[in-house]
């Protein structure tokens, strides 16, 4: 049996750079919405592994009543608990009870207090404690610092690597694109009020890598075409390169997106925030290689031209592997 010759994107000739204002607008809408939310609305929702506190996940045989849970806590003198019902997922009827941090010496007392409150005050005794997590403030701060450094080192490492393989401007354009992706992704977390935990930071670092990949594929093509199309303008070369790699970009991103979507839908509650970060990140990462990194190269060259400097964007060091 022979499949029909399926090939998308054959001989694509889209002028991407002319759409740059449209792209800019699109990016701005999402970035600004995210930043506004981070500043004024939900701020940056952060998990307890960064901010400290206690979180107890309890599963019930039937959907739990939030008011009853709150009363059970109040009767045990726990007044600052936040109670959230979790729907969906295969574990079904769950609630998450979160308490803000206490000082280090009774880091564990909050958990015992919650467990005790449920045991003595909740009317239904057939619940099960699935997960109990307490983080003291010291541990939380250390982790925040560590995670911050990790992201910075990651970006620096990539900048250096790209600088080595291409020219500095390529590295800068790629890093700005990645920064754009991270900002919008975190903005989405803020907009949807989903907590950022350490695993989410892992997802964000992964999509930093992924967005870089995508950008590198386009840059590699630009570098190749700079050699081949010596008479053409940079804008033409960049357009040509994006069109050449469009097939690969869409399909590869599409496949990765498929797997990440499978994770988002089937992967369960615990990985939910993680897969959300990847879903958003892959879409934005693919978009940014075309809409942010490439136009940036051209814009940089135009800026140099307007200052009267040399306008020949070289191909950088020729790859010799």
């Amino acid at each position, binding site marked *: 049996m022979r499949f029909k010759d399926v090939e998308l994107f054959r001989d694509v000739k889209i002028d991407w750079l002319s759409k740059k204002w449209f792209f800019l607008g699109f990016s701005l809408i999402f970035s600004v919405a995210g930043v506004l939310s981070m500043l004024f609305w939900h701020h940056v929702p952060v998990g307890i592994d960064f901010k400290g506190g206690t979180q107890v996940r309890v599963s019930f045989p039937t959907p739990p009543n939030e008011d009853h849970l709150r009363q059970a806590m109040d009767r045990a003198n726990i007044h600052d608990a936040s109670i959230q019902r979790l729907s969906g997922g295969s574990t079904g009827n769950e609630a998450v009870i979160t308490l803000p941090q206490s000082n280090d010496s009774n880091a564990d007392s909050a958990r*015992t207090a919650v467990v005790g409150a449920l045991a003595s005050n909740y009317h239904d005794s057939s619940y099960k404690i699935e997960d109990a997590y*307490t983080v003291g403030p010291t541990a939380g701060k250390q982790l925040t610092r560590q995670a911050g450094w990790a992201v910075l080192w990651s970006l620096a490492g990539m900048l250096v690597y790209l600088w080595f393989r291409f020219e500095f401007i390529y590295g800068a354009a790629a890093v700005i694109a990645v920064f754009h992706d991270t900002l919008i992704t975190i903005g989405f977390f803020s907009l949807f009020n989903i907590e950022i935990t350490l695993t989410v930071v892992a997802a964000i670092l992964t999509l930093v890598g992924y967005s870089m990949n995508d950008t590198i594929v386009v840059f590699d093509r630009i570098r190749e075409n700079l050699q081949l199309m010596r008479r053409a303008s940079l804008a033409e070369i960049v357009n040509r390169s994006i069109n050449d790699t469009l097939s690969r970009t869409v399909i590869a991103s599409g496949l990765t997106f498929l797997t990440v979507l499978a994770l988002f839908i089937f992967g369960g509650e615990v990985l939910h925030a993680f897969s959300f970060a990847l879903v958003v990140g892959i879409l934005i990462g693919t978009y940014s290689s075309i809409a942010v990194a490439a136009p940036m190269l051209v814009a940089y060259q135009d800026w140099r031209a307007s200052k009267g400097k040399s306008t020949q964007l070289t191909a950088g060091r020729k790859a010799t592997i």
Partner: protein
Amino acid sequence: MQKNLNGKIIAIIAILLVFLYGIFGIPHGSLKQTLTDRIHLGLDLRGGTHLVLQVHTAEAVAANSDNDLVRAQAAVAKVASNAKATKPDASQPVIVISGVSSAEMQAVKSALSGTEYSAYDISSTADGYKMSMKLAEIKDLRERTLDTSIETIRSRVDSLGVAEPVIQKYGLGEDQILVELPGIDNPDRVRDVIQSTARLEIHEVEGGPYTSLQDAQTAMQPDAILVQGGNTAEAQDYYALKRIAIVQGPDFRDARASQDEAGRPDVSFSLTTGAGDRFYQYTSTSIGKSMAIVLDNRVKEVATINGAIRDQGQISGGGFNKQTAADLSLMLRTGSLPASITFLETHSVGPSLGAASIRQGIIASVVGMFAVMIFMLVYYRGAGINADLALILNLVILLGFMGFTGSTLTLPGIAGVILTIGMGVDSNVLIFERIREEIHAGKPASAAVKNGFEHAWTTILDTHVTTIVSALILFFVGTGPVRGFAVTLMFGLLANLFTAVFVSRVIFDSVLNRKTRGEALSI
């Protein structure tokens, strides 16, 4: 060319078998049994307790210098009648010897020049000497305290019968210990056993019992501390005790749960020979005085010294039941913790959450993998089979790597496997697209394949290196679950470099070998 190709195919099959062995070992028992033997599951999948403890090593330094103070006092008293040794700040390892006349200075200096005081820098002051513990010594002492704490916790945990516990130094801060106990999802008893310093000491009673804090404070001497009586639930009267203990933790050689005359549970202990001698000396010169047995900073019992005691004793202050007496004896036997600990982080995962997570992770992996495989078959036809085979081999190598290195699979790790599927096939797409381009440009099949691989190689290398860099950083920063993710991502990418480039090429070559000249390539 033919022989080369066959050699390569054999090499690939050999690698496949090697990594299959990595996953399964020699199969025995059920499939599930074999798998879980080789690949360790993280706490988030297996259920268990994860603890991060902070050891207050400064306490051990203070206690150590207290002992040195007692010795120095005794040594100096022999040669200088009015000399006194004190610690101006109880928490700092600095000892001041004062009241030494100029005639006695030399004698005192030689008394302090023994090896017992080599840890100190000794400088002279107006009327004596000042001994400060050297920084290197302090650092060394803190290291040893941390190590001893780890060993003590390990022996306590072992006695609880936990399989495969993890107890080790923890990188994020100073003096931190990581404890992971799989299978224990109720951390309360474990925490009590671990946390109790079980600091049992015997102090001389200087005054008390006082019913109010103020009375106790006014009557207190400068080198005394105030300790409350009663058990932890309700604190009662205050006692003023001499700060430096007569008998301390390391002096206990053995302890057993026993019963007192009324049949109530209590703890019998015996001291080491050296400590026994000291105790004998003290008790024989202190008849009529009172001594207090202090457990974890509470006075358990106050007894009058009626005669000299050598090395056997009993703590029967009441408040013991069989379980607590047994636990206390265990802690005394395994040694008390040299310093107190606080819990920075506790996380306990129930086993059912872990099982649910595994199930969901596997479903997501299978769905993702099938989606990708079917797409590749439809879009790239014959070459799609190539990609799918490479994908399967990729997974085998990835899981085999994990089996061989004994890595831990966590829930984000499963996500990493899923990501590897998606990102891995990216390399294949890159190569295939390039090959298609070459074919459109009119090149014959074998040249197209050759060019495709060559041009795509640098891009594949670049993309893999950047992602491996992020994964490495994640590995060093992350703990537990995140580390598991970094590990599967890295191994997956490395495996992918091999399968996408070498294996795919071999499969293409063997397909091309079978084709006649000019026949089209199914891609």
